[in-house]
């Protein structure tokens, strides 16, 4: 079941001043996105950007031999398609829906015009870009140094933060693709978490039963990514510095 839709469920859109939001509003189109559907392929031209409201999108880096690994996850805190306004045109990653729901679609040309005004939307999008780079860097280090179980905990918590409920529809195969590990590794890690009473996994549905203990097991990477994404929308010393 999909939650009711409003563009302002997306934190970036919600953070826009009323005048800026009104300019965008007529161009925001609600789209329902399904699990596994690709919003972009790597190397392709992008015609739209997407502001997820109730959906979650996974950015995957695709290697030449076709294997892929998740480099970041985007939910209602962000936007899919930063290459468009950064001037890159195409992107090296593939954007795949990891949790079905709604997103706001916005045409590339409208976004570019608005970005070039240099106002609050530009400000928000640039800050979001930085938090995405931070997330990708952390993911790289986490992939290198942490166990599959810890990575799975990170992935579950980052997903939950972007969802209205504590349930996730997901196959082990998809998780394995996201984390870039073999399916057996995911099965084992998920089995351990289930045996410890932290999650329940059945028929492609994962429910988190004990979030505090999941947070105890996760590697520090979760907190780092969360902090960077919280920094994005709060006015802190960095924001003050920017205006000085």
């Amino acid at each position, binding site marked *: 079941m999909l939650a009711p839709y409003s563009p302002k469920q997306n934190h970036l859109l919600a953070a826009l001043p009323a005048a800026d939001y009104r300019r965008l509003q007529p161009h925001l189109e609600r789209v329902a996105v399904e699990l596994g559907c690709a919003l972009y392929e790597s190397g392709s031209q992008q015609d739209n950007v997407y502001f997820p409201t109730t959906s979650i999108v996974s*950015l995957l*880096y695709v*290697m*030449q*031999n076709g*294997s*892929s*690994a998740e*480099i970041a996850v985007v939910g209602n805190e962000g936007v899919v398609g*930063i*290459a468009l*306004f*950064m*001037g*890159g045109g195409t*992107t*090296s*990653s593939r954007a795949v829906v990891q949790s079905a729901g709604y997103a706001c679609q916005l045409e590339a040309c409208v976004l570019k015009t608005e970005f070039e005004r*240099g106002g609050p939307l530009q*400000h928000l999008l*640039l*800050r979001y*870009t*930085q*938090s*995405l*780079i*931070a997330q*990708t*860097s*952390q*993911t*790289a*280090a*986490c*992939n*290198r*140094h*942490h166990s599959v179980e810890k990575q799975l905990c990170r992935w579950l918590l980052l997903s939950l933060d972007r969802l209205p409920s504590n349930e996730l529809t997901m196959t082990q195969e998809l998780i394995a693709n996201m984390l*870039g590990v073999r399916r057996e590794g995911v099965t084992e890690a998920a089995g351990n978490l289930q045996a410890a009473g932290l999650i329940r996994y059945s028929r492609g549905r994962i429910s988190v039963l004990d979030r505090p203990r999941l947070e105890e097991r996760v*590697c*520090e*990477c979760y907190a*780092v990514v969360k902090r*960077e994404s919280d*920094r994005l929308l709060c006015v802190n*010393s*960095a*924001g003050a*510095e*920017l205006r*000085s």
Partner: protein
Amino acid sequence: MSDTSRGALLMLPRRSPTPQLNREPAGRVTRRAAIENRLLASVPRKEYRRLLDVLEPVTFAFGEVLYEPGDAIRHVYFPGVCLVSLLTLVDDHLALEVGMVGREGMVGIPLALGIGVSPIRALVQGAGVAMRMKSAPFLRELRQNLHLQRALYLYTHTLMAQVAQTAACNRFHMVQERLARWLLMTRDRVRSNEFQLTQEFLSHMLGVRRVGVTKAAGQLQKRNLIEYSRGNISIVDEQGLEAASCSCYQATNNAQA
């Protein structure tokens, strides 16, 4: 030309590095380092002259830390012949290089994106000259100078691609391929086939244990692609090394082209 200006000193310092900013006299060095940096070189002359007023040349030694995670970004740096590694730290001591910035880029991108705090460690990996700018004049220039803005955003996009590539590369590729890629990326930025570095340093960059580095370097040497002795590395067969590196080397180059 001195060693420093070739950016050739990649040795680890014996004691913990203390940043030393050797200010060069303005003039020849200023111009040379500025032109070396491609972002600065892309700014039209009139606007560039204004930038010169707020740019200041600095010489970095190997191992200097420009930012630690959580540090306020007080300066941004435009490398000339020096080379800076961006490292993500986990569990306080495990590091991994997620990006490499040379004359094609700028160190301090978070500030250009509106975040005044560095999430990563920026470590000088190849000594040499860079131009630096204080954060306040940088932000002022960024607002006024559309050329600089566009160039920086585009560079950010390629940096993002590099970080993403690194994340996937770390996941799938063997140490030997990754070492080959790292050596080639370093060569491209310092523009020399010879540099000095320790295995310990390489193990931080690649996020593997020292024995892994020793083994991989030994294999590349056996294939006559590099020569490695007492911390001196020279690339003897560039094409061979390119063939030995993973696809990521070419992919990153294409993204930057």
